[in-house]
């Protein structure tokens, strides 16, 4: 009961604040907020798989696409419908919530279908397979007449706003944090640290990996639904593997395994990208340079696997550390390779 209240607290504080912000925010910042909010949801959800569980998934955009298209379809179908007895505005919001929920559901299903066969593979192979699945999802969408084929779906109502983005971001963060401090989370960290040992200790590695995938995919679907209702359209080209890689960059920059790291990184990169729109071409080159330099100099990202409040700056009293298995937690990008052989798929 207490933990439930604890999880609700951010919303209790957050929602009124978001409502105020929404009222006073000039409309020109709308796209910025969308970029930041969506990035936060994507990055934190990807972190569950890439960071907590140490699996390298490059197919996040595919799940985003599934969620976006489902939400779009539901919105279009419910477009002319209104729940009697309720004012139209409330009915619209409920329809939107339903669309988002539907998006999360189908994305979760996609996560299951992709995860089941793929998670037998390791490292590089998993990356490639997830990339492949992401592209296949996109290709299938591109060829379905009911989904508008390559043209996609237009005319979606503009429902995404500061409140919805903020609530979604909060929800994703709360989900990730609750997971991190739970038994299931501990299982995920064990899998990240040493999968064979975890299996030997009785952790159902495949089961947990698939579950992480499902959760991660569901929230990616949420992000997709939000984007769709922000720019009022969905096209297959919005969800290429380049999008997946952009999210990976955000997560790696913030630190694989660190939720606050992902949030900070998502905000920083979201702002930077929107600001750099004028210099579209340079933006991607700088992005790429950033990635290379980051990997060469500080592969664990800003915060590694730790959270913001784990930094010495915030700590006054030594506190119990319930999550990391090793002190400080080794980031998957820091683990020393055995050289020579390495693990095989």
């Amino acid at each position: 009961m207490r933990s439930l209240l604890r999880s609700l607290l951010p919303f209790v504080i957050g929602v009124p604040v978001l409502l105020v912000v929404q009222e006073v925010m000039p409309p020109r910042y709308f796209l910025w907020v969308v970029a930041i909010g969506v990035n936060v949801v994507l990055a934190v959800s990807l972190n569950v798989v890439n960071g907590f569980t140490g699996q390298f998934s490059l197919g996040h955009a595919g799940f985003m696409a599934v969620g976006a298209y489902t939400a779009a379809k539901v919105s279009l179908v419910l477009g002319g419908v209104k729940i009697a007895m309720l004012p139209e505005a409330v009915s619209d919001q409920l329809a939107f919530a339903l669309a988002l929920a539907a998006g999360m559901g189908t994305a979760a299903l996609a996560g299951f279908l992709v995860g089941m066969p793929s998670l037998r593979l390791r490292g590089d192979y998993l990356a490639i397979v997830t990339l492949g699945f992401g592209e296949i999802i996109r290709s299938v969408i591109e060829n379905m007449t009911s989904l508008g084929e390559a043209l996609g779906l237009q005319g979606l109502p503009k429902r995404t706003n500061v409140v919805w983005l903020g609530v979604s971001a909060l929800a994703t963060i709360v989900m990730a944090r609750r997971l991190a401090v739970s038994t299931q989370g501990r299982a995920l960290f064990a899998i990240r640290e040493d999968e064979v040992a975890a299996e030997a200790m009785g952790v159902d590695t495949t089961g947990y990996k698939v579950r992480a995938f499902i959760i991660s995919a569901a929230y990616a679907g949420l992000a997709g639904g939000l984007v769709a209702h922000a720019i009022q359209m969905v096209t297959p080209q919005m969800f290429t593997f380049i999008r997946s890689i952009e999210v990976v960059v955000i997560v790696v920059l913030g630190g694989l395994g660190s939720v606050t790291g992902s949030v900070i990184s998502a905000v920083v990169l979201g702002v930077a990208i929107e600001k750099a729109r004028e210099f579209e071409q340079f933006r991607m080159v700088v992005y790429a340079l950033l990635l290379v330099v980051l990997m060469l100099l500080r592969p664990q990202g800003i915060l590694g696997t730790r959270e913001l409040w784990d930094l010495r700056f915030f700590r006054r009293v030594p506190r119990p550390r319930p999550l990391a298995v090793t002190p400080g937690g080794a980031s998957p990008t820091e683990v020393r390779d055995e050289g020579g052989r390495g693990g095989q798929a």
Partner: protein
Amino acid sequence: MTELLQHLFNGLSLGTIYALVALGYTMVYGVLKLINFAHGDVYMVGAFAGYYLGSVLGTDRAPNLGKAALVTIGAMAICGALGFVIERFAYRPLRHRARLTALITAIGVSFLLEFGFQLNPILRAPIEFPPGPSPRFFPALVDLGAPFDLLGATVSRIDVVGFAVAILLMLGLQWIVYRTRFGVAMRAVSFDSQVAGLMGIPVNRIISGTFVLGSALAAAAGIINASARPRIEPLLGLMSGLKAFVAAVLGGIGSVPGAMVGGLTLGFVEEFVAGYTSSRYRDAIAFTVLIVVLLVRPDGLFGKGRVEKV
């Protein structure tokens, strides 16, 4: 029947390109266990190198066999150097880090090449560099004449020349890998780089050499492809690179003959599926093949099963 034969020839033309590029992926994976995401972009750079060298040497106005050879060799040299630089500065420092780090770096290098080439030209003369995002026309390097009839199907001469060059290069590679000391050293490093180093093999030099070889082959592929399909743009390597990688996996990543067979196979599969069923699924075919291979037989056609020891 002629339709079938025509598809066969088309598939062959496609497949040789995939094979040449797949060789680079497979060799690098063999020695470094790294999927070099940037390899597809080296292929793209090769095509542009050929374009620039061609304009400098004047092949667009006066195509000529000698100059064509010069352009090809020049592009191969440029890409070889590029491969060397990438390995030396982006991958070597990460040799002892987790594979994930190197993979992400490879992605970064790939983006750097792709988006760097999409910048608007800074240099104007003698060449416009970077080329910018809009596609450019690749003028023929050598004037070969009209397509000819072969058993009912029409074959363009550049495809024949391209195929011949590709075969030559692949035979050359086979010779290097199986008949020279460098090749033996390369195979030793592929097997176990630590022990190879202990045996006195200069591992760093071998790895650099492997990159240079693979990149040179990719450059040749870039020029052959640009000659047959004369539109080049900075994102050229995106799909082709990915498909070539699938070809390498299909053949068994790490296996040189595997890459060649995988490339040709993928070329045929893509051509026949696109020609006889729907051409819409052209790109999806490669990914489907990839997933099927990885789930059913991850070691590919020629790969050896490796057991993971705890």
